[in-house]
């Protein structure tokens, strides 16, 4: 090995150890949290000031303090509703992941399956879910299952298309190498295609996570469900009918927070799985 090589490697390894100790420079991490937080506080303060200074009535625009109070006071109503929405979201996402990945594997293994199925997956994707929801509501046994089906349909496609793309984007030389070493179909799938497809799949996961929540809310609006089994979308509609603006805002805040949490979780999963090797997750020095 050349001296140049070994020096360079030693330096790169040192850099890497440094990174694993603390992923980014400390100031950078603080900034990433502090800046959005400061803007949030500033906006909330401005909102509160505006409401108080101009004596805006509560039924038009409640201040942030009132919204926060509503979240606490109405938790008995909002909490279960949040759980219902989250349950549908995660069930839909889980089904979409299993279904999307399985179908992608099948499509890639067989050209015939791809020709037969893929166009219909696209049709399912491009038809607005709000337009299909009434039909699903007629056929599904319960409203909840109808909402689940809607959320699943929306969340399914990004996983399918990204995973399919990933499974196809395998380095041709690596495929040759596997062939040369007598790899079986399954070895090629699990040792080569699946890891190659992982970054694509994770992109699909991030998109689908957000879409599953959106679809769960939209489908509930379309379903117009009511009663103890209903999720946040119904509670928001209900609050609007009753001009209970603090509760409406509270519901909105909870949906938003759920969306942010889902995005953060899927991003974290993606980062943890890719940080050792994928360019997208590698911190660069220059």
């Amino acid at each position, binding site marked *: *090995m*050349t001296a*140049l*090589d070994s020096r*360079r*490697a030693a330096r*790169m*390894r040192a850099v*890497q150890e440094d990174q694993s100790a603390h992923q980014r420079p400390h100031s950078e991490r603080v900034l990433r949290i502090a800046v959005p937080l400061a803007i949030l506080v500033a906006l909330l303060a401005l909102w509160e000031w505006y409401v108080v200074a101009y004596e805006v009535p509560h039924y038009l625009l409640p201040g942030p303090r009132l919204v926060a109070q509503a979240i606490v006071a109405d938790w008995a109503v909002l909490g279960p509703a949040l759980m219902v929405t989250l349950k549908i979201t995660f069930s839909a996402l889980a089904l979409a992941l299993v279904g999307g990945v399985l179908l992608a594997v099948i499509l890639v293994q067989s050209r015939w399956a791809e020709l037969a199925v893929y166009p219909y997956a696209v049709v399912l994707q491009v038809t607005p879910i709000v337009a299909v929801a009434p039909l699903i509501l007629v056929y599904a046994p319960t409203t909840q299952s109808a909402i689940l089906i809607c959320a699943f349909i929306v969340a399914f496609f990004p996983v399918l298309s990204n995973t399919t793309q990933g499974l196809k984007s395998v*380095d041709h*030389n*690596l495929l*040759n*190498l*596997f*062939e*040369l*070493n*007598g*790899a079986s179909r399954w*070895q090629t799938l699990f*040792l*080569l295609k699946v*890891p190659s497809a*992982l970054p694509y799949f994770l992109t699909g996961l991030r998109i689908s996570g957000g879409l599953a929540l959106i679809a769960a809310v939209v489908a509930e609006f379309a379903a117009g469900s009511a009663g103890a089994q209903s999720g946040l979308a119904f509670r928001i509609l209900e609050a609007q009918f009753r001009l209970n603006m603090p509760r409406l805002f509270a519901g909105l805040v909870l949906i938003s927070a759920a969306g942010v949490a889902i995005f953060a979780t899927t991003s974290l999963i993606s980062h943890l799985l890719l940080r*050792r*090797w*994928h*360019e997208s997750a*590698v911190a660069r020095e220059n």
Partner: protein
Amino acid sequence: MTSPSVVFDRVDKTFSNGTVALKDVSLTVQKGEFVSLLGPSGCGKSTALRLAAGLGEVSGGAIRWPRAEAGRVGQSGIGFVFQEPTLMPWASVFSNVWLPLRLAGTSKRVARHEVMDALSLVGLDGFAGAYPRELSGGMKMRVSIARALVTRPELLLMDEPFGALDEITRFKLNDELLQLWQSLGWTVIFVTHSVFESVYLSNRILVMSARPGRITADIPIDAPYPRDESFRSSVDYGGYCRQVSAALHRAMEVRAA
């Protein structure tokens, strides 16, 4: 030396788009030879190498591997080094080198010794846990070579393996490759478009010309091994380079005519 490693018998290769990559190519590579395939780009030298590896079908003629047929079953006994390092970015250096053994069903524990040996042969002790992106271009190529030699192949096929490297690293790896070749007794077929590299490494150079790809000259390089820097600056080396260069020019004129 009358024990052929690989024999091309009037091989034709036509791609599905109609391109004639190889036309009537016959060659015999003896066990222990270091043969370079030299030619302009598009002359089919990489195609010939892939066919020699058993990748793809010939359109006419036949390829035989007399030694592999008689030898081990299940393992091809062929190592292949690609133009790029072609490593799996998600796997450590160890796992990349382990791959050929893993595909043949050897467990990590059993393979550990051989993988470490292979890494040590290419001078990468201590890098088993590193990931490809942490390595320089030259080191990635060494991993690629380690992966090819971990199965102890008889026939090593190399497709312009050092083409993308800087000259210093390239010379260094040329020397290391020659040392490995001498100590391990491989047969090597080496594709390159560098006259100097082919003369330095090989004991036989096959010059190819394009459209259709065919062999136009078969030049023995009789300089003794081990070869080192003194060979690189010797009169003999210069003479061989002129001879091979002239053959390459003739090959390219044939194409223009």
